[in-house]
């Protein structure tokens, strides 16, 4: 196992960069949130990897003298997972609102509506109430 001593960390950083790439290269907001979640999970893996002790067991009292893995990272990551799903829910709710207001969840199309390239598109930013009503009408078809 000497050669593979840092394998966990390499994989963690590869996954982290995969999530980062999805966040910055994909234009779709739902895909961006998936990327953020991948990034987040890789941070969880980093912490849990650091808490592992070779030959240790789960930190639940067993026979006296057993070797336990470090419980502290586990606690921190438990908290982080629950907070993570709360922030994911918030992000997804924002995506739904953006879809209502702009009619799209593609970053480029949202930018195009905010700064019309030829100055001819309707100003959706100030009239978001009407835009919402319109897209609500479209959604009902």
């Amino acid at each position, binding site marked *: 196992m000497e050669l593979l*001593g*840092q*394998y*966990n*960390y*390499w*994989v963690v*950083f*590869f996954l982290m*960069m*995969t999530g*980062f*790439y999805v966040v*910055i*290269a*994909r*234009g779709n907001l*739902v*895909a961006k949130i*998936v990327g953020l*979640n*991948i990034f987040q*999970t890789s941070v*969880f*893996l980093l912490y*849990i*990897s*650091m*808490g592992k*002790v*070779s030959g*240790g067991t*789960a*930190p*639940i*009292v067993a026979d006296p003298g057993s070797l336990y*893995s470090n*419980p*502290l990272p*586990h*606690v*921190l990551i*438990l*908290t982080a*997972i629950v*907070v993570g*799903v*709360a*922030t994911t*829910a*918030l992000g997804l*709710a924002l995506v*739904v*609102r953006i*879809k209502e207001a702009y009619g799209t*969840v593609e970053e*480029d199309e949202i930018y195009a509506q905010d700064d019309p390239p030829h100055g001819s598109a309707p100003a959706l930013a100030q009239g978001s109430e009407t835009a919402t*009503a319109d897209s*609500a009408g479209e959604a*009902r078809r």
Partner: protein
Amino acid sequence: MTHLIDIVLLTFLVATAIAIVRLNSLFAVVMLFGIYSLITAGVFIALDAVDVAFTEAAVGAGISTVLMLGTLALVGHRQAPQQHSRALPLTVVVITGVVLLWGTADMPRFGDPEAPVHQHVAPRYIQDSPAEVGVPNMVTSVLASYRGFDTLGETAVVFTAGVAVLVLLGRRRRQHRDPGSSGD
């Protein structure tokens, strides 16, 4: 043996992540993300973090995937093909990744019992918590007793996020209903 399971599961994780990057269908991306979370839970078991594993399986693989599928039902599965060049994001990602990998050179070896992370408060939690708190599961003792204020802060964050989601989506439902009642 545990190391072997760990390595195999981590390799699965890498394969899933690459598939998520390459696939274009949003539905497939979200389902693969569910699989990814479940494999992560398996890795946590292999790394002795059983409490974290079942939380990740329930919350990460379960609730997150359901929330994403619900969002897809509202915003549609269409994903525009990528128009920008991939060169800039790839460069940024590769440079950041190389710096991070460089940083692992200084990290203690995986599983090293002498690593600094195991030297500070963890021995006290392991030795004294069964007597001081009386719960055999040390993670529970630390979560609810020694670091109880962290957990209080966590519930505050979750409450805030829940209120924010209700505010965002409740407003939408009202506006849906108003034109609906006058228009239809």
